[in-house]
């Protein structure tokens, strides 16, 4: 788990160079790479019944967030995409390795650190901008802080996560990231987009 070169975090080449796009003097949205984290896909190997769900949760050693939510604690973020599918993230890969003993009897733990390119969007116009990307209801009541969804963005699947009221992370499949982020820049430019390193 600790064999990745931190100097080659999975954002190289997919992001446009730092700069400003759109109307001069206006910055409604800031696009930056999301922090590089080690990521594990934890897939329950059997359908979870009521007892199975308890056992699965217990194996994490802490409460699992509900489906469609993420939760942070002790340097470990758990993203619950489905009843039996959790993405575990940590800046310290060893933190993820520690999950193996308890979870291995129930689930497969697959390293997906390099499978995605993740970006962070911030700014007062982020919600208006994201309305041009995804079809989800982005009202705080419908997609609150901590919500996560796999959703369509102009024909490709992305992971959308709300960190704050106007802060979102978007995860793209690595192979599609360059093209889709270029499209995203075009979509967000009318709001005044600043791309930062």
């Amino acid at each position, binding site marked *: 788990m600790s064999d*990745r070169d931190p100097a080659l975090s999975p954002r190289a080449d997919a992001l446009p160079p730092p700069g400003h796009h759109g109307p001069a003097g206006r910055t409604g949205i800031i696009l930056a790479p999301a922090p590089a984290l080690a990521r594990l896909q934890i897939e329950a190997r059997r359908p979870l019944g009521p007892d199975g769900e308890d056992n699965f949760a217990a194996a994490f050693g802490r409460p699992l967030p509900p489906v469609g939510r993420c939760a942070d604690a002790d340097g470990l973020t758990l993203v619950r995409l489905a009843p039996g599918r959790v993405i575990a993230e940590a800046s310290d890969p060893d933190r993820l390795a520690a999950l193996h003993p308890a979870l291995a009897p129930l689930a*497969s733990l*697959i390293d*997906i650190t390099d499978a995605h390119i993740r970006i962070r969007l911030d700014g007062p116009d982020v919600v208006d901008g994201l309305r041009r990307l995804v079809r989800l209801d982005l009202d705080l009541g419908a997609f609150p802080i901590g919500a996560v969804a796999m959703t369509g963005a102009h024909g490709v699947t992305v992971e959308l996560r709300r960190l704050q009221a106007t802060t979102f992370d978007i995860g793209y499949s690595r*192979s599609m990231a360059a*093209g889709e982020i270029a499209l995203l820049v075009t979509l967000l430019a009318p709001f005044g987009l600043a791309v930062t390193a």
Partner: protein
Amino acid sequence: MTGHRLPAGGLVDRARPIPFRFDGRPLTGLAGDTLASALLANGVSVVGRSFKYHRPRGLLGAGQEEPNALMEIGTGARREPNVKATTVELHAGLEAASQNRWPSLRFDLMAVNGLMKPVFAAGFYYKTFMWPARFWETVYEPLIRRAAGLGRASGLPDPDRDAHATLHCDLLVVGAGPAGLMAALAAGRAGARVVLAEEDVRLGGRLLAEKVSLDDADGPAFAATVAAELAALPTVTVLTRTGVSSVHDGGLWLALERHAGPDGGPATAGPRHTLWTIVARRAVAAAGAVERPLVFAGNDRPGVMLAGAVSTYLHRHAVAAGRRAVVATATDAGWVLARDLLAAGVSVAAVVDTRQAAPTGFEAVAAATRVVTGAALAGTRGRPALTGVDVVADSRTIRLDADLLAVSGGFNPSIQLMSHLGDRPAYDPALGAYRMAGPVAGIRAAGAANGAYDLAACLRDGAAAAQAALADLGLTAALPDLPATDPTPVGAAAAYWTPKAPGKASAAFVDLQHDVTAADVTLAHQEGYRSAEHLKRYTTLGMATDQGRTATVDGLAIMAALTGRSLAETGAPIARPPVVPLPIGALAGPRRGAAFRPVRLTPVHGFAEERKAVFLDSGAWKRPQWYPLPGETDWLTTVNREVAAVRAGVGVTDVSTLGKIEIEGPDAGAFLDKVYANRPSRIPVGRSRYGLMLREDGFVLDDGTVTRFSETRFLASVSTAHAAAVYRHMLFCRQVLWPSLDVSVVAVSDAWAQLAIAGPLSPAVVAALLDDGRPITAETFPPMAAAELTVLGGVKARLAAVSFSGERAFELAVPASVGDRLIRQVMAVGAPHGIVAYGTEAMGVMRVEKGHPAAAELNGQTTAHDLGLHRLLARDKDHVGRVLSARPGLTDPGRPRLVGLKPVDPAARLRAGAHVIPAGASATAANDQGWISSAVWSPTLGHAIALAFVTHGPDRMGETVRAWDGIRGTDIPVVIVPPAFVDPEGARVRV
């Protein structure tokens, strides 16, 4: 007045004149004008030529109902045809041109079509252009193509972008007239999420077009007050310049927003349009009502206009549509207009009412002008524009001089959107119009769209509709205090054309945009096309861009009279989306140019670009096809070099696009045994094996390799083209067919960069890459061996000795983020061995030389027996496709089976797709014995080779047949040979 512009009033800014051009003629309008109002203000009476007969036409309406004023707007790449002048905001520099005329609007040669009216009657194309048959393609079709169509597309790439966006709301309100404003206000004050969509540039609807008073404020002032409150409500989104075009299942609406630049013209920075998808839990359709014209002989003469449109031009744009008006009406609304015209100083020659008596309350009008009741319009005079109107009353014909005839035949509630979900409107005799009986899928009509024409009723209806809609959602909305208004005169009587009407039926136009006359409707009845849907399609009535807003009901009424049925019995056709025109660019949205479809790049794409690789589109992937060196200008030279280099030395190619699926768990082996036709559970740890996967119907789905890294961990490598399909198939098997198995299936294709290093010198290159320095020999790492190890100083990697080329070869995978670093390291350590980068073309040549089937052979129509892989089919266990793959039809040796072909003449070139025909037989379907699936030039052998499927192929080795290509015109003698052309014993992989 100056021209037709009134000296005062209107919502125009006289301090801001706006220059524009129409048919090259410079004109001036005012800020706040539409193109139509500006043309009227300048006294332009003829704005176009009709579709079929090229009759001169003037403005009829003031909005989307306009059938005549279709224009080309803009120039160059931004020229847009068929735009209604009534919907164009006037802006400086606007260039507008009339359509459908040659050489000019004033003198149009094609007006000769009018002389052929009897020939061009409804449905003429079902009865003509049939004889002689040879004329169809040579004479009739070219002529019809030249004559048909309306407007010209620019033919140039669209320089503008359009956006797509999504909004969610509790309540969508369509239309911001009085009913829509009250609906939005009631819902917004209740805290509901509201979207108010208004097609116009400002809110108000009819409040901007009529002289009304609401609590002592006039219409525009009241609308502005409500608009200000709506803008301040935090849960209300107001979209102006936004036309709602359609409604779909699940509360999904499409609406098109036009973005304007600072001068009101189309936006040139940012998107030109936004196509909104609005997800609404409930909706209020407050789109108003459209006035019906009167149908009579000569009703299409320029100068004949809808009374409501005249009112709009008068009140909103301060334009008198004429200097001397006749108002012909079946409604009280006509009298209101007459009163307003007189108040504005316009001469009113007469009010002609089809009813027997004038309505009460208009005595002052009656005193100021001539009144004729119980009248019918008999015709119009003037060329090309109106100069007089003929009226029949009491058996007398009255001739009136006028340059404006304002007509009002009644009102049709605008309910097109509500019929998009399949519900048909029903005729309401009390209202004299078609309307929806009740809510449709959560959509409520309100205001005039609901038949509430009185202003007070309209306001109340809008608020009530919102209240009811929110109640559906468990929300409570209070009714707002409604302003005090004067009662609106709403009296009306039916006034439809009948065969007894004076004047020729062929001169009484029902659908102005498609030149459909009362005579055409009569003809349709005569010929048996009597239902509403048949009438529409046979005559094309209602099928133009105005969707029959001013035509359909009149046409139905004529048909009802002819058939002796009521309008209720006749029914109405369903309106179909879009209700407002949608530019194709808006539908495409941001997916255009380089973003037309998603593009997938491998982790080593940058390396390939640096080396000037020529890329191939392989699905969404960009794959290097070959790597030309400086001086190489012919692709075949490059590919031959790459093949030779790999066969003699070593090469590296990017195979990151292969699908990679991790199968993990105690039952992983058992699961794979069910999915694959052979037996992956018997693969030892640290080994790979070729795998064959069947579909349920017994045909081959995919091939690939399965590698075992531990007792419970496997990696399936599947072909690029089938990666998604195989993954879906595996998920289906796991979740649906065998959910009790203790196994997981996870796709990790994008997580890994993968390189194939091939050639007799590949072991040395691979050995130099490994951190642990292990030797790579036929003994220590034989073909099909596999291992997890590290490279690049500690980076985890997966190595498998698999070959697609027939040479000793390896596939090395690392996490995608270090893929670029790996390939550069491979090139560095391979340099002393003369390593070359090679692309998919060379890969393809080598696999054909080796006889490996690929996508062209695994095309979904071939079986394991066809491919010569039937020995892989395990007989002692069940797997997907086992039963049906044993069908006699799939195992018949007479089926075309995989063989190799080589040309008798070594210089001949073979092509994929050619048919295999026996020597001496004619090239017919009966003699077709197979086809060539893959063909390449083999630099190794010095001639072309092919893989083909040939009937009884394996039993015909050495036989000479023909490769016949009827498309390219070749017929090449070939010899049937085994499919492995190079190293058939497989010795080269074992070095």
